[in-house]
Each structure stands twice: as C-alpha cells, then as structure tokens.
C-alpha cells in the first residue's frame, strides 16, 4: 500500500471508531474535496445533496469501513460520490427500453422508415442504414476492451480527449490518434462485412455510407431509429 494512503486509512479507521478529533480533521480536510466534486458533477449545485448525504452516511453509518486504502481518501470519496450520482441519474432513466426491446424497435422502425426530411421515401435507405448499423455493431464488438472503452468514454460519455486520456492513462494526442485508428479499423471492418457477409457491391456499400453522409444536418439516428433523443446527436469537437 502506498504510504500516503496508509495515513488516509488510519484516519478512516479513527473516524469509523468514533474518534471525534479524527472526524473533525476529516471534515476540515475533505469537505471541500467533496463539494468541489459535487459542483464538478453538477455546476448548478444539484449534486450537493449527494455530498451532504454522503457526509451523513460517513458519520452515522460508518461508511469508512469500505475504504481499504487502495487509493487516497479524497479519490475514494470522489468515487463514492460519482457512483451515487450515476446511480441517481440511471434511476431516473429507468423507463428507457431494455436493449433487446430497443433493437426490436429499431428493426421495425428501420423497415418502415421514411425520413421526415425526404418528400420521396427511399426504400433502400432504411435497409442500408440497418446493414451499416449491424456491421458497425459487429465491428465494435471485435475491438479490444481498451479500444471499446476509449470509444465509450469519448462518444457515449462525451468526455474530452484529455479526460478520456486521464482514464486510460494516455496523453490526449494519443487518445486522438487511437480514436482515428479505431475509426479506420471499424470502417475497414464494416466495408468487409458489407461486402463479404451482406454481399453488397462497392456501389451499394457507397450507398450505405451515403445514407449516413448525405444527410445535410447532423444525423439524427434517434429520430430514424425511433428512440428518445435527449443526448448529443453527433460527435462534437472536443479536442480541448
């Protein structure tokens, strides 16, 4: 164990044992940490109640006993707060369809897809999108865990390159390069699957990509696929 963590662990043990002086020291030293973290999660102050509740639990429920000294106490507090924050958000999203149901809806919607932007429905466009989507899913699945995690952090979680790099212990330039490499690998894999598994010609493959690219504005897969749109529509520029 890191020596500096040992001191934190001792403090946690003392707090768990009801040492008032230790608790006082903990409050003085770590309360700002928690509040800064809460404000970072929700600048409007919506996470402060979580920080307060965490304090209450630390005091009354001896939450300290779960701290094992594998990290600094400050980082552990941020982790517990992050966990509670994420769980609260997820609890508020419980009405979202399960992934399997979602896929079923996707298929049905794609089959009957008619773009609201197109006055004349293109019967092949929905099929192309579906093929592309299937190939994309398969291609992503074959990536290694680190590449998938990097994609998840950047695209799903909306982290910046620097934040993504912080998680993966990579420099942001490396993250950028790795994302570009992964995108190229996915594209190559998607092209291969469309050609070899779906039996599409090069022209048809081009039509598949065109179905995505020809859209003038940001692609609205949510609308195309009939799922709620409450998040971002396309990858923003998050190089900063």
């Amino acid at each position, binding site marked *: 164990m890191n020596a500096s963590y040992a001191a934190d662990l001792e403090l946690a043990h003392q707090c768990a044992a009801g040492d008032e002086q230790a608790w006082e020291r903990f409050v003085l*030293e770590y309360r700002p940490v928690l509040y800064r973290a809460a404000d970072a999660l929700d600048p409007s102050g919506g996470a402060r109640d979580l920080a307060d509740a965490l304090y209450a639990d630390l005091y009354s429920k001896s939450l300290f006993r779960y701290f094992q000294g594998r990290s600094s106490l400050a980082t552990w507090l941020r982790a*517990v707060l992050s966990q509670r924050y994420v769980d609260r958000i997820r609890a508020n999203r419980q009405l979202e369809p*399960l992934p*399997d149901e979602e896929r079923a809806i996707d298929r049905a919607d794609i089959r009957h897809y008619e773009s609201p932007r197109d006055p004349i429905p293109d019967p092949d466009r929905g099929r192309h999108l579906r093929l592309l989507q299937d190939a994309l899913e398969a291609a992503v699945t074959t990536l290694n865990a680190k590449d998938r995690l990097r994609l998840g952090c950047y695209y799903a*979680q909306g982290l910046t390159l620097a934040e993504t790099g912080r998680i993966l212990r990579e420099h942001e330039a490396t993250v950028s390069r790795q994302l570009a490499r992964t995108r190229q690998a996915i594209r190559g894999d998607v092209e291969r699957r469309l050609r070899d598994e779906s039996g599409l010609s090069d022209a048809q493959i081009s039509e598949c990509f065109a179905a995505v690219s020809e859209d003038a504005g940001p692609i609205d897969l*949510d609308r195309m696929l009939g799922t709620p749109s409450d998040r971002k529509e396309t990858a923003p520029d998050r190089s900063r």
Partner: protein
Amino acid sequence: MTNQKPDRDAAIDRLLAGRATRSPGDTPDPADACLDADTLAAWADGALDAGALATAEAHAADCARCQAMLAAMARTAPLAPARAVAPWWKPAFRWLVPLTAAAAAVLVWTIVPPRDGRVTVHQVSESADATPPPVATPSPSREPAPVAGVPPTSAVTPTPPRETQSLAQAKEADLSKQVSETAKADLSRRSADGAKAEDAKAENDKKSSAADANAVADASTRTDRARTAAENAAAAPAAPAQPMARTFSFGAPETVIVSSNPASRWRILQGGQVQRSADGGATWQTQTTGVSDTLSGGSSPTPSVCWLVGPGGIVLRTTDGRSWTRMPFPEAVPLISIRATDDQTATVTTEDGRQFATEDGGRRWTRVPNP
C-alpha cells in the same frame, strides 16, 4: 475508393455518435459485478496492478454504468498539472519570485504584534492585500475546546488568525505541493504537542515554505491533496492544540459556522453575539439572538438555516438567515455541539456526552441511545 475514405470515416464517426445516443455502451451491463468505489478510486489513482487494470477495463468497456462512473470521476478530478509555456520574463526574472515572497513574508512577520497585542481587522486586511486574493472557501482551524459532535454538513471552526490566513491564501494561490506537504507535516506535528518553540519553528517553516512555494509557483500542481492541504494551511497552526492560535491570536478566537455554501457563514462572539456573513467572511452583520451567554457551537446545513447551541440548554435556530428563535430544550445543561441536516432535523451533544435529536425543528427532543 481512396478518396471515399475520409467521407466514410466521417460516416463512421457519426454512426458512433448516433450509436452512443441510443444507449451508452449499447449493450446491457455485463453480468459480472460492477466496479466498486474502491476499485474505481484505485484506478483513478493509478494504483491497480496490470492484471486488475485489465480486468477493470474489460468490464468497463461493456458496462454503461461503470463508464458513466469513470466519466464522473474524470470530471471531478482535480486539474491536471499546469504545463503552461513560461512567459518571456520568467528566465530573466525568476529570481524575483522568491525575493518577493521573502519580502512579503518579512512584511507579514513585522506586523505580527506581541503575543498579547491586538491588531484591528482593518490593519490586518491591509497586510493581507499584499497576498493573492482570498479564495471563497472556508479557512478552517481548530476549536480550542474539545467538540464532541462535529456536524456532518457544516464545519464548526474558529476563525484562523488573519496573518495565518494571509499565508494560507498565498499558499492557496501558489498551490504548491511543497506548501501542502509542509502544512500536513505541521498538522501532524502539532498533533503531538503544541510547545511554543515548536510554534515559532513552524511559523518560520511556513514562511520559508511560502517563499519556496512562490519560487515554484509556475510548476505548481493542483491536486486534491494540495488544494485541501493548502486550504487547511491555516488550520495547521491551530491544529488540535492551541499554541499557534496563541501565537497569532489577536483576541479570543471566535467560532465560525460555515454553511453548505461557503459564502454564507456565521460566527459566534462573546456574550451571545452572533454575526453573519453572506460574502464568505468579507463583511459581517451582527444579529440579535436574545441570549447573553456565549454560544458554543452551531451547524448550518443550508445557507439560510443555522442552529446554534450554548450553555443552559440554549438551542437557537434561524430558517431565514436573519431572525433567531430559541427552541425549547428539555434540560438546562451545557450543550457543546449540534449537527443538523436541515431546518427540522438536528442532534445536539451535551457536555456530559449525551445526545438528543429532533425531527420537528427543535420543538421536541428525544434522547439518542448511546451506541
């Protein structure tokens, strides 16, 4: 075909973004257990070994919840070390930084009055002007008297002496690891004893540390520990023992109750007097409490709600941040601390260690059984 690649890569980019909009990770959470806070924290601190890290990455790669937690961790992480390009004047005038810091330290040193002297706030504020602007965070210190119950939602702290604050503010601005470590060292050292000689030495240490800190200001590191320790540098002098507080004391230390919003705080003065600040302690307004006994502690769970306790079973509460109401308490015993979670729920601790709780704003109190 070759010229299609950029377009297709862009299409993949848009598809990935669209994929993300449908469902984070787009797969159900893996069957294996999610990362616990301990593992997440160890990951963030780089304390996982290669095997554990690979396992954690493999799980998080397909787990929307863990990805979200990692993202939250990334967003709450302290700022990365500053690696700004050095200004043009830095190489030539780098020697000015420690010199200036030393001069500032000497200035602060010279205005420190005799131990039993008093310096007005105005005078001290002028000396503080030589230091970087204060941060809007409480500058905690230690309560001289033992506190049996420390509120989880507010810090009950005596105001650190102004000179100490100045040093702390300088350190906060510098955010130097050296300062932090020195502050922590001071803190632990003071836990051992509070001899005056130790105080004087620590005081000199702090000043030289401030100078050192300025010297390395451009390479300062914003870590949680650094910030925390820097914020609490003012606490170091007073840590559990009081001697340093005596060293810098310009009068009786008053107890400060910082609310959940550090801008809003109260301070307890002698004779039942209470003052409130809505600007982080820059200005104070005296409030009428209706009691004449010196209060002993308080808790402020929200910026407008504050509870105070004192001798003879005094429990005071404000819910608007202005007017105080004395709440009935079943025994006329000295109350030494209170811990409140809102304007209705609070627990007080008596001098003899018993605790009483209320859940109706202080109208009724019930004894909390000892664990």
